[in-house]
C-alpha cells in the first residue's frame, strides 16, 4: 500500500465512525426477489435479433455451415482488408484473402488502429436487452481488441443466448470468480450528450454487426 500509515489511520477511523453511525451489527436482510427470473419468451433468437437491431446494429442470421460465407460477405461489404482477430479464433471463420492482425499480450493498442475491423465470438447474449457479453476468454481477445478498431463483427451461437439479465448473471458468475473481466455491449458506442439526441459512434466501434448462428 502506498501510504501505509495515513490510510491505516483513516481506515480505522472510518470503520469506527460507520459502526457508531449504524449502531448494533445487523444480520443480512432477506432480499425480496419477486422479479422475473425468465421472460417466458419462446423464441429468444428472434427477440435478440429485434432488440440488437433497435440499437441500430446490423443483425445477420445463418446456419453453422454457412458461417464462413456469411462472415466473408459482411467483411467484403464493409470493405475490410486488414482484420484484427484473437489468437484463438476458429481458422475457418477467417476469409482466405484477408491480411490479419493477431492479438497478443504485448501488442501495443496503437497497432490495433491499423485494422479496419475486428472479428470475435462472445460468451453470452441477452435476448431481452439485446446485449452481448464478452468475458475475453476463447475467441474474444483482450479488452482493447474489441475497442480500438472502428467496426466489430461478433458471432453469437444460439446456445449462448439467454433470456434476461438474471439468467445472464448466473451464467457469467464463474467467469468472474476465475478472474475474468466482463464487457457488456449493447449496440455501437453512442452519446446523447448534445440535446439528448443520440449519436452512434463516439469512442468505441461505430459499427456493430452481429451474426446469430442457428444450430
Amino acid at each position, binding site marked *: 500500500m502506498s501510504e501505509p500509515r495515513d490510510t491505516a489511520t483513516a*481506515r480505522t477511523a472510518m470503520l469506527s465512525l460507520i459502526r457508531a453511525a449504524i449502531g448494533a451489527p445487523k444480520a443480512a*436482510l432477506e432480499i425480496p426477489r419477486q422479479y422475473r427470473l425468465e421472460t417466458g419468451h419462446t423464441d429468444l433468437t428472434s427477440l435478440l435479433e429485434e432488440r440488437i437491431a433497435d440499437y441500430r446494429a446490423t443483425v445477420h442470421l445463418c446456419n453453422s455451415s454457412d458461417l464462413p460465407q456469411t462472415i466473408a460477405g459482411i467483411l467484403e461489404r464493409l470493405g475490410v482488408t486488414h482484420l484484427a482477430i484473437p489468437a484463438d479464433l476458429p481458422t475457418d471463420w477467417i476469409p482466405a484473402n484477408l491480411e490479419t492482425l493477431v492479438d497478443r499480450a504485448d501488442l501495443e493498442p496503437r497497432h490495433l488502429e491499423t485494422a479496419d475491423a475486428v472479428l470475435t465470438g462472445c460468451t453470452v447474449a441477452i435476448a431481452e436487452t439485446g446485449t452481448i457479453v464478452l468475458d475475453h476468454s476463447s475467441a474474444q481477445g483482450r479488452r482493447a481488441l474489441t475497442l480500438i478498431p472502428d467496426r466489430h463483427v461478433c458471432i453469437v451461437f444460439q446456445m449462448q443466448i439467454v433470456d434476461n439479465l438474471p439468467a445472464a448473471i448466473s451464467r457469467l458468475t464463474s467467469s468472474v470468480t476465475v478472474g475474468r473481466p466482463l464487457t457488456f455491449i449493447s449496440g455501437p458506442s453512442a452519446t*446523447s*450528450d448534445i440535446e439528448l439526441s443520440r449519436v452512434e459512434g*463516439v469512442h468505441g466501434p461505430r459499427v456493430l454487426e452481429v451474426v446469430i448462428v442457428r444450430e
Partner: protein
Amino acid sequence: MPFVDPKPYPAAARVALNDPQLRRNLGKATTAIREKRLRVVAELPDWQALRDAGAAIKTDAMNRLPELLEQLEVSVTKAGGQVHWARDAREANQIVSSIVLRHRAKEVIKIKSITTDEIGLNDALELHGVTAIETDLAELIVQLAHDHPSHILVPAIHKNRAEIRELFLKSFNLEPADLSDEPRALAEVARRYLREKFLTVPVAISGANFAISETGTVGVVESEGNGRMCLTLPKVLVSIMGIEKVLPSLRDLEVMLQLLPRSSTAERMNPYTSLWTGVHAGDGPQEFHLVLLDNGRTKVLEDEVGRQALHCIRCSACLNVCPVYERAGGHAYGSVYPGPIGAILTPQLIGLESEHAQSLPFASSLCGACYEVCPVKINIPEILVYLRGEVVHKKGNSFFNLEAAAMKSVAWVFMDKTRYEFAQKAARVGQMPLVKGNTISSLPGIMSGWTNSRDLPAVPQKSFRDLWRERAAAKRVHP
C-alpha cells in the same frame, strides 16, 4: 462539493429563470427523456418488484457497511488491486496525487465521475502541475467552457448545439466552414482529439457505479466508450468511490443493471458496462487502486431518516421529472449534486449550517414525482420535509418563530364560529386596497413571501356560510 460561494437557492434560481435559452434547452431535453423512460419502464411487468429488490439491497448494504467494506478490501487486494481509505476530500486528493506523481504523469484521463467533482480533484491535481482531461463528451464541453455540470447524466444539458459548436471552434482552433452544428460532427471532433490521449496518457481516473464486496469486482456503466478506453488502455487505473457504492453480491447486479439504464438514459441497456476484478494479467492496467471515500457520508448514515439518500445510484430520473429542476436547471442548486436528490444529499453531506444548505430542502413543490420514479425507492419528499423541520429547528428564531406564532393565532380564530366569521368580515374590508379583479398579486411586508411567486384569491364578498343561510331563508319563503 458545493460550488465556490454558492448563493441560496431562491437567488440562484431567479438568475436561471431569467435565461430563456436555458429554459428552452432544459424543457426540450427533460420532456424527451421523460417520455422515453416511461416507454422502457412500461416494458417490464416486474418493475415494481425490481424497485423493491433494489431498495432492499441498498438497505442491506448500509446495514452491513463495515463488514462489506472490509470484505471488499480483502477481495480487491487478493485480485492484485490496492485499497485506500480517505476520510475527506483532502485525503482522497492526496492519495490520488501521490499515485499520479509517482508515475511522473503530466496528464491524466478521466471518465465522468461525480465523486471526483465532489472532492475537486482536477484543481488538486493542477496544483501539482498535472492536467486532468475529461473524456466524457459532456464533461469535456463543461471543462472547455470553464463551466459547472448541471445534470448528473447529461452535464452539459444546459447548452445547445450552436453553443457547443462555438465552443469547439474556439477551443480547437477550427475553421467555421469545417464544422457544422450536427451532434454527429461535434462528437467526431471529440473522438479525434481524445483518441491520441487514450493511447498515450499513462494514468486514468474513474468513479465506480458499484463494487461487489464478495468478489472485489468494480463496475462502470457508460455509453460512449470513453470509459472502456480509460479502464483498459492506461498502465495505471485509480477508481474513486463513495463508501455507499458497495453491494454484497454479484447477483445484485441482475437487479441494478435492470434499474439503472432504464431510469437514467431510458434505454433497455446502456451501450457499455465494464466489470473488472483487480488486475487482469496481460489485459488492461497492471496497477489498480481503489479509493474508498467518506467525505460526510458517515454523518449522513447517522441520521435514520436521512440515510436513505445514500441509496442513490445516480440515475438522475428524479431530475428529469422534477418541475422545479425543469425550470431552474442544475446550477441553481450550487452543488455537484443537483435536483431533488441534490436537495437532500448536499445539505446532509456539508451540514445544515450555511444559508445555501438551509435553502435546498425548500427547492421543491413536494409533488412526489421524484419518489415515484426513484429506482431504489428513496422517499425524497419525506426527507425534504424532515430536513425543512431541521432547518426551522436550527434557525429557532426570526421568521419561523413569527410563523409559528401566526399559526397559533389562526388556530384560535378557526376554533370558534363567531371569531371565524368576524375574521372573514374583517378580511373583506382589509383586503380592499390590495384586490385587483378577484386576486391579490402583492401582499405587504412579511406576507409578501406568499405572493412573490403566486397570486392569492381574494376573500369573496359572500362566503359559503352566507350563501347557505340565504338559500335556507329562500326555501322558507318559497317551500
